[in-house]
């Protein structure tokens, strides 16, 4: 049982996740674009267009043009998500000692790590709760929502909720988690930490990753394709600005 769960399943998840994501991007890339669909005003150069995409990805500029409340919720959620993902990667790799690279003592580093992690996690949760309430509270939002929209929110609430629970009430030793994950990545499997909260958290993440390539979460990649269609520069036939 634990062999299947702890050692086999993660590899299946990873293959489905990466393979599915790449497959869908390849499909998009292989469908032709018969006409230029630029929406103006647009940048004149490829560099400008790339910069535009970057600003959109970091600042959610299109949402800023509309209702600021949605911008705030969505931006808070995604920025916090980015920070938390980076935090997981760095924190677990360095066991919370990453800030010693900047001259902190190991104890200071651990405290900083916990501090940042807690704030980013809280921001993530606030953003997500806001988006969830927004979707549930308005009749128009319910009209355009379907089961999948709610499901994704519930999965994320579960993941983030259990993450915060571990942080506050049920600390899981970083070391055990790191050994487990490092084992997976180096193909020398170790047993997963025996902690209910961790296993719950980890399983939900696996479910989300399995679902990711088939779901609207593919917007994380697709958005760059679709924005490119309306952002890409198109030279005028006559230069008169």
């Amino acid at each position, binding site marked *: 049982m634990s062999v299947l769960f702890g050692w086999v399943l993660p590899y299946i998840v990873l293959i489905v996740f990466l393979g599915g994501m790449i497959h869908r991007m390849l499909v998009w890339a292989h469908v032709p674009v018969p006409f230029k669909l630029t929406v103006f005003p647009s940048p004149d150069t490829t560099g400008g267009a790339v910069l535009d995409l970057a600003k959109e990805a970091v600042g959610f500029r299109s949402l800023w043009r509309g209702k600021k409340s949605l911008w705030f919720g969505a931006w808070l959620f995604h920025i916090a998500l980015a920070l938390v993902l980076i935090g997981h990667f760095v924190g677990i790799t360095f066991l919370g000692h990453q800030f010693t690279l900047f001259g902190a003592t190991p104890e200071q580093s651990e405290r900083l790590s916990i501090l940042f992690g807690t704030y980013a996690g809280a921001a993530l949760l606030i953003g997500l709760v806001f988006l969830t309430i927004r979707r549930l509270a308005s009749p128009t939002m319910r009209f355009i929502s379907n089961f999948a929209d709610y499901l994704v929110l519930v999965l994320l609430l579960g993941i983030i909720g259990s993450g915060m629970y571990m942080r506050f009430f049920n600390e899981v030793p970083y070391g055990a988690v790191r050994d487990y994950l490092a084992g997976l990545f180096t193909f020398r499997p170790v047993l997963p930490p025996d902690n209910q909260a961790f296993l719950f958290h980890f399983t939900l993440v696996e479910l989300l990753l399995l679902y990711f*390539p088939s779901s609207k979460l593919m917007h994380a990649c*697709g958005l760059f394709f*679709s924005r490119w269609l309306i952002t890409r520069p198109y030279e005028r036939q006559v230069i008169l600005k």
Partner: protein
Amino acid sequence: MSKEQARIPYEAKDLSVLRLAPVAVEDRPKAALELLGEMLKYKRSLRLYLDVCTHCGACAEQCHSYLGTKDPYNMPVARVELVRRVYKKFFAPGRSVFRAWEGAKDLDQETIDQWYKYFHQCNQCRRCAVFCPKGIDTAEVTIAMRELLAHLGLVTKFHAGIVKNMEKTGNNMGTPLPAIKDGLEFLEEELKEETGLDIPIPMDVERAEVLFNPSSSDLFTNTDGLMAVAKIFYKAGVSWTLSSRIAETANFGLFFHEPTMREHSRRLVQAGKELGVKRIVAGECGHGWRTWRMFTDTINGPLPFPVVHLFEEVLEYLRTGRIQFDKSKNPEVVTYHDPCNYARGGDLIEQPRELLRACVENFVEMTPTKQYSFCCGGGSGILMDEAMDLRVALGQPKAECVRATGAEILCAPCAICKAQLPVVMDHHKVDVRVKGLSDLMGLALIL
């Protein structure tokens, strides 16, 4: 607004001009699925838009069609969802349970009716694309779906009629050549009376510098605009000509039938080549301009000459001092309506403003403006008399924007806007006169 009001009357009976055979009613769902499958293979936009929407709803309050009709299916996201649910059922990747969670639904006759209805309540204005964080341009979906409906034999009478007129006469109004020539002679006489000068409106002059391609409505209903253009070319000393082959810049094919769009474009380019002109200048028409600016080169390129807009051409004269304006001839408060296909669709935002500031005394901006401007509600050829209730509902958000400016003149340099806005302003009791930019330039031009 009631369901009945919103309905656009079916349906052109005779589609021979589109070279399409109507599909029997009971065969439509099957045929529609095949067509959708084909389109997904050659339109990346369609496929992406069906895949990447997160149902965030940011687009809803930005669509004048939803704001004006309050019909939830007119939210851009809900409009596209009418297709997305079919896509999820039959074409989307992933396990069928996953797709069911995303609202997958069979394609039945009712869905096709909804497509017909709601894709004729989208003006293809592209405002949603500016506010959607994924850049989803619902107009693209509408264009694709109208094309699909056309292949099922579902085209509005109005659109089919326009295409027929175009094919027969080279203009959308269906005016035969002798009548056009008579009309032009009459306008030349008017010009003589007004200015005392012999200002020509030439036709089919070989080796002229410019082939001017007006909207056909300029030849008969908005004649002030065409006379103004004649005066400007005369003053600037530029040789120009109309073509008897095609006197129409409005390309209705863009709205629902790509082959028609291509044919229109080909016809113009051929006219330019035969006359041996140096460039083609497009007159006041929004979607016509988008087609020239964005698509012509792709369809018929590389072109031996550029296609430029009248405003770019005139701005060049103004900046180089070949013409001058006397602002005091236009003392009224003027506001400017950005035709969707100029601003968002065709990169004409500052040029008309520079011209306006030069030829009117009191120019006020509207809110929202430029690429954020609302559509007049007539875009994509929703101009039929039968759909008057719908037209005034679609125009309602624009009417409020215009009212707030307190302007006396609404400058709307697009043939469709010019046909639509007076109706809308009248209905919503906004006291304003609608004019083209050419008209205002003509009044202010110092001859």
